[in-house]
């Protein structure tokens, strides 16, 4: 059976000999690496402002609450999604035994996408004129004001166009594949772009903007209105918000892991069946857990309970992926000594297991009563989006860059440094905020008469440690980006065997 299956999967003709140009992938990877530094630095500014609130005093567009959403949305829509899409365009043609359907469509999509991200960022920082240069108050031009939906409508339109272009191109590429079997990395990639497109359109519905226009320009009052209000708005917000983490960042990173982990250590995948179980349980369970962001909030009690139960069911897809990655690494652990992408992947796998268990337990009511509204959640989010998703992406980029540009990696030592900076940085970051978050939550819980400001002042040491961890994380981003940049721009070493016709002297010598 096994042989038959392999015969079915194995290339029957010149599939492996296709020379992939990887142009689109290079564009997307390059722009994402620019974005990760830009939005990483914005995050660092926010972290420093927590301990130095006087920094950039009086500069409206660098106020903490404008920098923070720019960082949050930037790292997801400017870095995690584009890097995943970029590397999809590296591995989907290779897994399909064909070239990309079009190299031009993804490039145009990238232009739309990046314009969307920049417009969105500017709309959040909101430096435009207006009363006293404080920024515009037009809801079409400013933030939508809800977490993960913050980018304004113009930005949403640009990003959606980019997304549709990518969808079309990926589906056409897969449709003309020459290997019938769809490898699991492609499953996750298709799931990611499909789910991203679906939830993005639902989550960014401009209800407030339409109602505002009808009210201000057409004098329409009361019902019907086109937006969601109050608790209903929050419920839709978190259906979308958790999908961004669970069905955009997670399948993107897992798709990269399923392709690049076996590739980087040159070992077969542990279990195809397990990966399929993981994929379908991820899709079936993850959409249900959004309400765990509102435990004890003004939503129906049963909805909170459903979210908690499904949060625990999430152990199934997480265990499937983690067991699969560890099983794939079985017998190859000695490679940890020299294989930098493998280090990234293994650290990310462990952090995926940690962050998911943390998330499941966090959804329990007694735990949520203490840690909700504290920095514990911030540590959790960074463990997920940096420790898990970004670490997988870094490993994948370091593995793929030399192969895309067909040159040796610029510096193995620099890659090593970027790993340790990222690893130590995220560890410091998460530990300080986890301990600090529980501490502050317990203060709120046990001392209802303690003035709020005292619980803020007590958090200062933890925020110092967090800013330090954040600095290390930004440094690792800079090193990865610089390494890839130098890999791409350093002239290829002259390989006489392939470029020059072997002369008699060379053969003889």
């Amino acid at each position, binding site marked *: 059976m096994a042989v038959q299956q392999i015969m079915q999967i194995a290339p029957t003709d010149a599939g492996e000999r296709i020379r992939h140009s990887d142009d689109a992938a290079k564009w997307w990877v390059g722009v994402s690496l620019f974005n990760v530094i830009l939005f990483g630095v914005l995050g660092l500014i926010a972290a420093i*402002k927590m301990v130095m*609130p006087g920094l950039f*005093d*009086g500069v409206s567009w660098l106020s*903490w*609450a404008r920098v*923070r959403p720019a960082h949050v949305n930037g790292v997801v829509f400017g870095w995690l999604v584009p890097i995943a899409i970029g590397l999809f365009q590296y591995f989907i043609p290779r897994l399909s035994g064909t070239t990309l359907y079009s190299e031009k469509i993804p490039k145009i999509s990238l232009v739309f996408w990046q314009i969307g991200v920049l417009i969105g960022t500017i709309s959040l920082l*909101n430096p435009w004129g207006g009363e*006293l240069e404080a*920024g515009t108050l037009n*809801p079409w031009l*400013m*933030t*939508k*004001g*809800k*977490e993960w939906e913050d980018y304004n409508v113009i930005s949403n339109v640009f990003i959606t166009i980019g997304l549709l272009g990518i969808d079309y191109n990926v*589906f056409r590429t897969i449709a003309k594949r020459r290997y*019938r079997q769809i490898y699991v990395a492609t499953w996750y990639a*298709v*799931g990611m772009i*499909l789910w991203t497109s679906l939830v993005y359109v639902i989550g960014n519905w401009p*209800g*407030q903007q339409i*109602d505002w226009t*009808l*009210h201000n320009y057409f004098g329409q009052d*009361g019902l019907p209105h086109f937006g969601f*209000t*109050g*608790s*209903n708005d*929050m419920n*839709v917000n978190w*259906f979308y918000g958790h*999908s961004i983490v669970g*069905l955009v960042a997670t399948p993107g990173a897992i798709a990269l892991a399923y392709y690049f982990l076996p590739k980087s250590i040159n070992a077969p995948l542990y279990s195809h069946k397990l990966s*399929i179980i993981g994929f*379908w349980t991820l*899709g*079936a369970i993850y*959409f249900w857990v959004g309400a765990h962001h*509102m435990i004890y*909030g*003004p*939503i*129906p009690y049963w909805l909170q309970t459903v*979210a908690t139960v499904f949060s625990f069911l999430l152990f199934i897809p997480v265990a499937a992926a983690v067991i699969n990655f560890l099983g794939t690494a079985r017998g190859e652990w000695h490679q940890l000594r020299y294989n930098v992408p493998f280090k990234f992947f293994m650290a990310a796998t462990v952090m995926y297991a940690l962050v998911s268990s943390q998330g499941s337990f966090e959804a329990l009511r007694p735990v949520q*009563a203490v840690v*909700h*509204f504290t920095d514990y959640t911030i540590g959790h989010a960074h463990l997920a989006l940096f420790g898990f998703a970004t670490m997988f992406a870094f490993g994948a980029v370091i593995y793929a860059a030399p192969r895309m540009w067909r040159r040796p990696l610029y510096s193995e030592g620099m890659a090593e440094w970027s790993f340790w900076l990222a690893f130590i940085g995220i560890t410091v970051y998460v530990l300080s905020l986890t301990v600090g978050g529980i501490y502050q939550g317990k203060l*709120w*819980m*046990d001392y*209802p*008469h303690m*003035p*709020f400001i*005292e619980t*803020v002042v007590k958090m200062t040491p933890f925020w110092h440690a967090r800013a330090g961890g954040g600095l290390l994380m930004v440094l690792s981003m800079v090193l990865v980006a610089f390494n890839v940049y130098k890999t791409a721009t350093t002239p290829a070493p002259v390989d006489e065997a392939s470029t020059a016709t072997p002369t008699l002297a060379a053969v003889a010598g």
Partner: protein
Amino acid sequence: MAKPKAEQSVLWLGIFASLTMIVALVFTAIFPAFNNRWSTNTQDGAEYFKTAKFDDKGAPNGGYTPLQEKGRLVYQREGCSYCHSQQIRPLKTEMIRYGIHTSPAPPADEREYIYDEPHFLGTKRNGPDLSRVAGKYSDDWQFSHLYNPQQMVPGSIMPAFKWLFSNANPADPSQTPVPSGECVALVAYLQTLGADRTVWDSKLNGGKGGYRPWLLPQDKQNSLQESQSAVNRAERPVHAPRM
């Protein structure tokens, strides 16, 4: 050629992947929305808001005056909701912390938010919850605090919103900063947060129960007097209102 198995079809993959989302969307987002406490036009909501002054048509869906609605837009633009939640959880400690004097704050109710578009319920408290802040501080206290938070609350990490004031020249202490229209609107909105909150009191109407405002008049008066005396003071007064 053999018929492709479902596992090998990208069409079925796409259909089933979309189905997983649609099923969850129906059960966790659409089905709960048919909840008569989340909407402005139900009997329950109308009854609840009978005591409050909500006939001004300032907001697209009513509920706020034009000034307060503008204040909501400033609140949205400045990202206040990233640091200040607007929901009291039904936990004893939270109701005490965000209460005023002898009145513990009533926990959040779905019906309070039916005019809020977008919602500002928030998920992080870098600063205190704001959903019961109305009446706790005077307008002057709010203006001073927005202009220089560290002066009013030593150790505060809130940004100073100097761009919401004109003549803001820190070098010249003789000049008093004047709050702009946006700032006035913002404070007008802040003073609605929980101001007309009603609570169910089972002792009313001879044991039959009924709604009454949660704030006792004397509590409101005391807290306003205290915050008024705290304006422009460099140090926090001993009896400063608790937050």
